[in-house]
């Protein structure tokens, strides 16, 4: 089961320093925060599409196309319940559709889709080790960064072992699809318990293996990924900074807001 979005490659996106990629996440969050107007969000969306094509991440965008569409649609719908502004086109006790609520809902949906796009770009081009190194470089304590990367590594192992248990239970005639949603949910308990116990059996051995390799011995641990910022990284930081400033200026000039009337 392919749960990771990482796509092997040597594109400019892959070669960016992990800290710059974390900065890119922040710049994207900052940019979409200031604007609600869908038109103002379009340039960022286009920029992301170009980056996905040029950075070799497009396959993941295509794979998740229905999720992107769903995010925009359902977010727009939920805001139509709460954003009761503007002259109504349809007015019911629950949903009030107006030009303003359509624009507002669509804008917020687009925002979330662009945030999803940023994370897809990040995950498509960043290995877990790079992410861990980036976190440590940003000042996250080594042990916390280690726990995050170890957890990332364990996820596919646990999923694989759960799938093995499911197959074994099926062979013994256990029916996972019988009953309503709650009954089906409960039927997965016999799958989770062996995975849980297997994981706990490993816990002591893992802790000993870590300590045998000097985990917790003190001092600053070194990392295999320990490279300096290059010229291209600095340029990317500057461009992303420019993008963040531009979006703040759009907000400041009043072009990012939606006026109900």
């Amino acid at each position, binding site marked *: 089961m392919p749960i990771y979005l990482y796509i092997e490659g040597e594109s400019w996106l892959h070669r960016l320093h992990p800290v710059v990629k974390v900065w890119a996440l922040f710049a994207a969050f900052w940019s979409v925060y200031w604007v609600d107007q869908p038109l103002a969000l379009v340039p960022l969306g286009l920029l992301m599409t170009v980056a996905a094509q040029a950075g070799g991440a497009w396959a993941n965008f295509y794979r998740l196309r229905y999720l992107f569409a769903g*995010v925009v649609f359902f977010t727009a719908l939920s805001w139509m319940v709460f954003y009761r502004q503007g002259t109504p086109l349809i007015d019911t006790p629950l949903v009030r559709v107006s030009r303003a609520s359509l624009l507002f809902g669509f804008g917020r949906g687009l925002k979330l*889709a662009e945030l999803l796009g940023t994370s897809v770009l990040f995950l498509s081009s960043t290995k877990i080790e790079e992410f861990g190194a980036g976190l440590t470089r940003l000042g996250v304590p080594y042990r916390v960064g280690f726990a995050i990367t170890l957890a990332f590594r364990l996820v596919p192992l646990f999923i694989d072992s759960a799938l093995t248990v499911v197959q074994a239970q099926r062979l013994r005639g256990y029916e996972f699809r019988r009953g309503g949603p709650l009954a089906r949910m409960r039927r997965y308990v016999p799958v989770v318990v062996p995975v849980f116990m297997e994981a706990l059996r490993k816990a002591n051995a893992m802790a000993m293996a870590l300590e045998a390799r000097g985990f917790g011995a003190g001092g600053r641990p070194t990392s295999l990924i320990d490279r300096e910022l290059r010229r291209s990284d600095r340029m990317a930081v500057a461009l992303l900074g420019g993008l963040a400033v531009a979006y703040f200026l759009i907000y400041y000039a009043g072009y990012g807001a939606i006026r109900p009337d």
Partner: protein
Amino acid sequence: MKELGSMWQDSRMVVLCAISAALYAAVLVPFKVVPFIPGITELRPANAIPVVCSFLFGPAAAWGAAIGNLIGDFFGGVGPGDIFGFAGNLVYGYVPYKLWEIVASGRPPLPRSAADFLRYALVCLAASLLCADLIGWGDNMLALRPFGVLGNIIVVNNMLAALVLSPLLLLAVYPRVERGRLLYRDILGVAQRRPGGLMQAVGVVLLLCGELGAWLVGNLVSTGRLNLGLLPASLMRPPYDAAVALGVAPFLLAAVGGLALL
């Protein structure tokens, strides 16, 4: 709350934190493929894991819940709201064992009698409410999703998993972990706390009143049913981002303050 910091000194707790996070994410990620409401939430049977792990691994499970949710979010889109997702899940993993120590007088968290099940349900409700408050408040403040949607979906999702799945998992797993001396009390070498003490009582009251107040005010303000007279009229307009942020914050502060006193 100091054990949230001191647990990082113990290698076994670090490993248990990673295991809790990975177990949570391993159940979370497959359900990301079939979101319940895309962009808002998905069906989350995985929410049973932080509760179970909380009773077993204490502070390691709290961090595990936060990290596991972060990993899950990486597969459904990370965003600034994940900061609040991190904090919300941290308390979702922290509150159950902490409150259980107070309300259950040293009994194992196995809801075998009606009274124990009621205690267990209240502890889970307290954890779910604070988690929902923090995430709903943060996401509404960041202009991403309305409190009235997210704040309620999280409570329902968490309670469903905690009441339907967690008790079964606990009954199967807790006695084995206890025999294997892998409970957080055994690893950290802390004795079972006795309930009582004025500070603890104040903490519980602050926590419960704060989180219930935050949930009510968040819902009422985000749906336009409550007008906070202290705030300027310009803030009391849809989408109520600033109004929710300012109206809910004092209650959240009280709840977190109460948590610190437990």
